């Protein structure tokens, strides 16, 4: 699997965790404009832990997308560990979020 496909699969995994809960409107992607739309449509507090974790996941994936191929291997290894941890924290934050 290329790094491009791995990055999309990682994004899909995060979205499936967030969208496991029934929102008024689901999260369409981890692009910043999609995240802000999702926060607004679901009236989610922008300062909540949930909002912070979703923004963090987006920032990590897009940071990696802008790296050159030479830089990517070691960065990706570290980032995939961070994303796994983030996915666990997100799972809890989604379950615990009270509107």
């Amino acid at each position, binding site marked *: 699997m290329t790094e491009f496909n791995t990055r999309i699969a990682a994004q*899909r995994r995060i979205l*499936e965790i967030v969208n496991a809960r029934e929102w008024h409107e689901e999260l*369409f*992607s981890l692009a910043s404009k999609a995240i802000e739309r999702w926060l607004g449509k679901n009236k989610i507090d922008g300062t909540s832990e949930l909002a912070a974790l979703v923004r963090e996941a987006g920032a990590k994936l897009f940071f990696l997308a802008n790296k050159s191929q030479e830089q990517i291997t070691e960065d990706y290894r570290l980032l995939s560990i961070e994303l796994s941890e983030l996915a666990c924290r997100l799972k809890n934050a989604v379950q615990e979020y009270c509107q």
Partner: protein
Amino acid sequence: MESKLIFASDGIDFLRKLGSPMPYIDGERDCEKFYQLFTESRNSLTANTNSKIFNLSSLFLSIRNIATCYSLSSLAPVFSRNAAFIIDIPTPLRPDSYILLERARILATRGIGEPPTDAEISELLLDLDPIEEWMHKLILKVRAL
């Protein structure tokens, strides 16, 4: 050249000094990458009830980009967002379905628009088998170049 120097304070045209780009040699690998994106997005779309817009958006990306990579390999580059309809082996996707995928792409990247309904998505799913065959054709032709 796609870029043209308008002004340089030292008068040196550094764009011209860059010379011609290297020939594009990753066509087969790139086409396979977007074919993989297509199959994963379709599988996820049929297996999961959530994140449908993201998967539709990824389908759009796979169809547009495989067409562009194919066109580059064939030395007839098309960078239009409608590249899939313009290349010499055009996509069999119905224009309505393509517009629906494009709507999903704009929702996912810019957060703008109205999400497609479940009925629209169900209809689109019926339209995807010929796309897989079309992608195979493109990959086979790139391999033969």
